């Protein structure tokens, strides 16, 4: 952006330099074993601005939102609907670099910098950005939503979100990704940085609802201060190849982080979720719960890691990943991992891949429900454990409906 302040231009140059300096990803790297980096254009070979077929996206109604920014193909010219308490800022991030420099400058890129290719790529190229600031003690009851759409007018879209929730403040923020089915390929790169100060509460929902043709690398990082509560909810339903990497950092004593996810992969979709919680202070709690259903010849990968470095006694950390395979030929890999270097911690991890229970299926079918529909009922039931954790009723219902609509 031409009128960005010098510090922001410098950051962009640094990202570009990092992109040149970092070795190209080959797929031989341990973290890239499951999703070929080339599928997500991690080496940045796709020229921007190449059309991938066009369509239009009907934006969902903005009712029930405190604010909404919608970016078409990454163009930073969002429509805004605002009904916000005093002091709360919801702004296009490019503009906020200057108008809210004091708030933005220290935090932007501090959780997700340029030390890996996804970070550098996004740092160098992002245009559709959202900035949310909730001042000390203020509660925003309705969700604040960003919608990034891809219509195929350009071959690449970049999104970046920065959220700051101050001490004792409370908010819900949704990042939603939508497109129609496209004939060509659109590469999407998004980075979300979430800061929740002492005693603050944030529920962040990433809802990936792309149509056919979109490939997406998403990084989500959340830092929770003392006694702060963070919910990172991730719903992945759309896109051809999607890799989501949420990390929650428990940075203050008493921090409470939950990472919840559900995914439903059908056709030949490939989804990878790499979910990490890092406990950097004593007496913190984290709980990762991801559930997925896999149908047709789709393939999903879950890698979960609980990291407890030295100096975090009293850590309480759990992770669970469960997968339901709906037919022969669908595949799920689950790799639950622990890196614990502190004594006196409570940690557990579990990963499972199973089939639909025959007795459940029979019970539903014996009431006339055809097999495919019965399996889907079971899948929605299976997801319910995650959906039940979403505190905002209307949002939970929307996500339920989205999961259902997927296979209609």
């Amino acid at each position, binding site marked *: 952006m031409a009128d960005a302040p010098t510090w922001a231009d410098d950051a962009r140059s640094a990202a570009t330099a990092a992109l040149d300096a970092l070795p190209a990803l080959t797929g031989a790297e341990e973290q890239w074993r499951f999703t070929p980096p080339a599928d997500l254009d991690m080496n940045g070979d796709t020229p921007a601005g190449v059309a991938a077929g066009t369509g239009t996206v009907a934006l969902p109604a903005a009712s029930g939102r405190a604010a909404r920014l919608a970016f078409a193909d990454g163009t930073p010219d969002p429509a805004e609907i605002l009904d916000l308490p005093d002091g709360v800022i919801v702004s296009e991030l490019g503009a906020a670099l200057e108008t809210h420099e004091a708030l933005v400058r220290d935090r932007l890129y501090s959780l997700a910098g340029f030390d890996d290719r996804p970070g550098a790529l996004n740092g160098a190229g992002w245009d559709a950005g959202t900035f949310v600031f909730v001042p000390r003690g203020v509660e925003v009851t309705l969700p604040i939503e960003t919608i990034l759409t891809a219509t195929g007018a350009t071959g690449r879209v970049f999104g970046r979100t920065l959220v700051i929730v101050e001490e004792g403040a409370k908010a819900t923020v949704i990042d939603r990704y939508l497109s129609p089915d496209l004939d060509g390929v659109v590469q999407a790169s998004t980075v979300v940085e979430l800061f929740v100060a002492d005693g603050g509460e944030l529920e962040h929902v990433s809802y990936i609802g792309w149509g056919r043709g979109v490939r997406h690398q998403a990084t989500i990082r959340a830092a929770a201060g003392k006694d702060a509560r963070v919910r990172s909810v991730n719903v992945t339903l759309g896109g051809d190849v999607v890799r989501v990497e949420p990390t929650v950092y428990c940075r203050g004593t008493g921090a409470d982080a939950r990472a919840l996810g559900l995914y439903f992969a059908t056709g030949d979709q490939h989804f990878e979720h790499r979910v990490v919680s890092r406990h950097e202070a004593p007496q913190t709690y984290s709980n990762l719960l991801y559930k997925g259903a896999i149908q047709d010849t789709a393939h999903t990968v879950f890698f979960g890691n609980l990291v407890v470095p030295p100096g975090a006694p009293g850590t309480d950390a759990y992770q669970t990943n469960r997968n339901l395979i709906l037919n022969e030929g669908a595949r799920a890999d689950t790799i639950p991992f622990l890196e614990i270097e502190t004594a006196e911690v409570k940690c557990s991890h579990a990963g499972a891949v199973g089939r639909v*229970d*025959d*007795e*459940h299926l*029979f*019970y*539903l*079918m*014996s*009431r*006339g*429900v*055809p*097999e495919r*529909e*019965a399996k889907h*009922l*079971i899948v*929605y*039931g*299976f*997801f*319910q*454990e995650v959906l039940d954790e979403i505190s905002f009723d209307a949002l939970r219902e929307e996500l339920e409906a989205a999961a259902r609509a997927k296979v209609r």
Partner: protein
Amino acid sequence: MADPILKIEGLEVAVDNTPILKGVDLEVPQGEVHALMGPNGSGKSTLAYALAGHPRYEITGGSVMFGGQDLADMGADERAQAGLFLAMQYPVEVPGVSVMNFLRTAVNATRGEEVPVREFARLFKEKSDLLTFDPSFADRYLNEGFSGGEKKRHEILQMALLEPAFAILDETDSGLDVDALRIVAEGVNAQRGPDLGVLIITHYTRILNYIRPDVVHVMFDGRIARTGGPDLADHLEEKGYVEFGSAETAAAPR
């Protein structure tokens, strides 16, 4: 006599390759209520599951005609759509699926058309009232945490909503308290008529005093060993099954 709604001839069924039913012959004319009794392990539930189309219950011989259709060619869902209903001895819990959502899906599936939400709500209220089924269960997950008796009532509620042509009640009476038994029996009796055939699997005459059967069958070691009138049930209650074979055979048929 009406055409049989159910006509079973020489039915052989194996579970995990173990033969359980060894040639069952049984006929229920439409509109009649038959009772099926027999010692533990004699194969009553096996017959019920095989009729309902549980994939683990493999038909290895004989035939089952249901209202003129060969059941062997039909999936469990198609059998239900054709009007067959099984109230299960042990209804399973399905996590996360709400009772309301399940019941609506089932009613739509068996009717083959979308029942409007309001009409369904009315239907649900009417049938819940009839069976004194607590409507707050609608928001709970399917059978999850239901008591034994609540599960049984829920089975009969489904029967009332789905209005089958033929219902098999597999020990619906066990686990019901006296009042619940009476209510469930009244529910079944309310549906009784020329368009409903019923097969009641039970160990006790108590339910048969509420729902008088036209015919009583005794299953023993995978076959129908005797068929008689309602008094046969009283006779069995008094004498047990020793006359059909040794007590050991009755307990563990080979």
